[in-house]
């Protein structure tokens, strides 16, 4: 199916022009002197900590950013080529809490959960990329290298991690290099995207700027992931907040392309609204679906892969709100042509992740995947002959070769979890719910799915890198 353009051509152009206006006249607050100097040297105007970026520079940066690249699996069968027309599901990043699958209660995320989510995504057929929660049982200074090490050990699929500083990037790259047999080998088949979040509005801390610089210098795929809140850290108007977020993403891309032209970048939208009663950031609302679709369109317009939170919900429990918010969000993101569908498994405005939700989301992805494949229209599928045969025969299509061939050819999607029982059978079986089936499947996969372990010496070397990181970074 062709992607849906939620913005009319003229609207898109106005958002783009307003973005250039912001970058050129308000600029980006960059708290990193070396980067300011570098940008100064290529024609930016630097006023104090603010860097004003010209339209020409933005255009050149977008030109040098590759329009397509691949996030690799440990095995090539798990590769995710980020190309137009393909969407990949990514588990939630950075949630501080998880819903414990055994107790059903919320608790702090732990390193064991990072491993569980990675293994679960590895096992599920429609889950493509892993992002970790933020575990509390590890020193915060080394949480990112530990998360990457844990994911590398527990999945063969591509992964993404959000970092806050350049020094984290250095250790993450060391861990990844060890797992892939050297930095060159890793760079040739990167299994990791590193994301950095500018602080809205239009601010990059010294640490975040260093993280962008280090990632770009290594030539590793970089995500620029601002998260402005409508009315709080971004304008109250949706178009205005999109403009600001767009400027934040493009500013990050300019830095990366200036450091290392050709650095693969992902345009990541995490725009939310602030609930004007509680101050909470809200992820399950129609405005987020709308701005996600617009951001995906902007990414297509700029020719870089786009990533949005496709499974956002404000619901805490497993209820109807949870289902419809994530389904509508996903539908909007997929139809708008987002390359990466973030926040699989997330609940409560991305504050928690649950294994049951990851399993359910795998089913949702399969559902929309079938939708987006559209329908085959050709001589055979138009079925003129089959209709004639049936009408002239016993009036049934069941026995036709045409029926069997199309059924085997995947004309109809078969769900893994959804209920299609008749009422009596459903009643006799104790009225099972999809949540129960999701939970059972999650527990079954966690008990039985094995990920091919890394070689023992690699495992030991990764531990040694983590020990080095701990020795250097953890303040005792």
């Amino acid at each position: 199916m062709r992607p849906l353009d939620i913005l009319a051509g003229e609207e898109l152009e106005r958002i783009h022009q307003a973005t250039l206006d912001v970058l050129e006249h308000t600029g980006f607050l960059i708290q990193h002197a070396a980067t300011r100097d570098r940008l100064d040297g290529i024609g930016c105007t630097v006023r104090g900590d603010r860097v004003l970026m010209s339209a020409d520079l933005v255009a050149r940066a977008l030109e040098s950013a590759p329009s397509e690249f691949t996030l690799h699996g440990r095995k090539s069968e798990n590769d995710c080529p980020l190309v137009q027309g393909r969407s990949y599901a990514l588990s939630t990043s950075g949630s501080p809490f998880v819903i414990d699958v055994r107790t059903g209660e919320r608790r702090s995320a732990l390193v064991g959960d990072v491993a569980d989510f990675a293994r679960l995504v590895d096992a599920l057929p429609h889950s493509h990329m892993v992002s970790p929660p933020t575990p509390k049982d590890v020193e915060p200074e080394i949480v990112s290298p530990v998360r990457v090490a844990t994911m590398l050990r527990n999945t063969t699929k591509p992964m993404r991690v959000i970092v806050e500083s350049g020094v984290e990037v250095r250790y993450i790259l060391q861990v990844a290099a060890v797992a892939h047999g050297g930095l060159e080998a890793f760079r040739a088949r990167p299994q990791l995207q590193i994301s950095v979040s500018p602080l809205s509005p239009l601010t990059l801390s010294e640490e975040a700027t260093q993280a962008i610089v280090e990632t770009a210098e290594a030539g590793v795929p970089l995500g620029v992931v601002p998260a402005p809140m409508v009315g709080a850290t971004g304008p109250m108007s949706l178009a205005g907040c999109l403009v600001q977020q767009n400027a934040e993403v493009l500013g990050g891309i300019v830095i990366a392309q200036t450091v290392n032209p050709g650095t693969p970048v992902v345009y990541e939208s995490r725009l939310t609204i602030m609930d004007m009663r509680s101050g909470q950031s809200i992820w399950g609302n129609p405005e987020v679906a709308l701005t996600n679709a617009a951001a995906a369109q902007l990414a297509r317009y700029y020719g870089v892969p786009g990533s949005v939170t496709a499974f956002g919900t404000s619901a805490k429990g497993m209820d109807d709100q949870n289902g419809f918010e994530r389904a509508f969000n996903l539908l909007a993101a997929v139809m708008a042509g987002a390359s990466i569908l973030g926040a699989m498994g997330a609940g409560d405005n991305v504050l928690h992740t649950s294994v049951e939700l990851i399993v359910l989301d795998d089913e949702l992805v399969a559902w929309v995947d079938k939708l987006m494949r559209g329908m085959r229209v050709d001589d055979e599928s138009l079925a003129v002959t089959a209709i004639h045969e049936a009408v002239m025969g016993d009036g049934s299509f069941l026995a036709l070769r045409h029926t069997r061939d199309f059924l085997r050819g995947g004309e109809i999607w078969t769900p893994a979890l959804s209920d299609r029982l008749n009422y009596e059978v459903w009643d006799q079986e104790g009225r099972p719910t999809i949540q129960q089936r999701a939970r059972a499947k999650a527990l079954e996969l966690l008990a039985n799915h094995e990920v091919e372990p890394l070689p023992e010496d690699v495992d030991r070397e990764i531990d040694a890198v983590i020990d080095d990181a701990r020795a250097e970074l953890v303040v005792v």
Partner: protein
Amino acid sequence: MSIDILADLRAAVLDGEPAEVKQMAQRALAAGLAPLAIVQEGLTAGIREVGEEFQKGKYFLPDLVRGAHSMEAGLEVLEPLLAGNGEARASLGTVILGTVHGDLHSIGKNIVGALLRASGFEVEDLGVNVPTQVFVEKVRESGAGFLGLSALLTTTVHQQEAVITALEDGGLRDRVRVLLGGAPIDKAWADRVGADGYAPDAARAVRVAKELASAS
């Protein structure tokens, strides 16, 4: 005439127009009204109405914050005169507020600060990325009764614990009530690190501070 000025002042606070409030406060003074009366019957009464509208569900956070800024604009004019007359506005206590080291997020802290001020607390906002030792020194010097620590990043919430530990090490823990806030924070965390209070949102943060203030 003077009653009209106070009614207009209340209305301007309710509308959330700081520049107007400032002008009206000056007009009220020029009309010969007592500074304390202008504060109590104009500003404080106005901000109380703002709070009531919020409780009724008619007002939202931007209305609260603009109301609070309006009141502050009026106080800028009036407060120096109160001090000179030996009169003082009733204060529920002083809150030192800041976002912990390594964290640059300010919006939640700023909302809480505005609401606390509007509710009668004095607020000393230390800003963002505040080193632990700065919090400790401020508690030592100021004698403030409350310390509010904000953290948004899941990797910086540990700094809240570090501040509490540093207060203990400095023998200052008993002097101050420590309140925690931020999206990754829950009550279990606040209990674990030995905070005195926690609130899931700004309006509730004010309620918690008031409860602690009346208990002390």
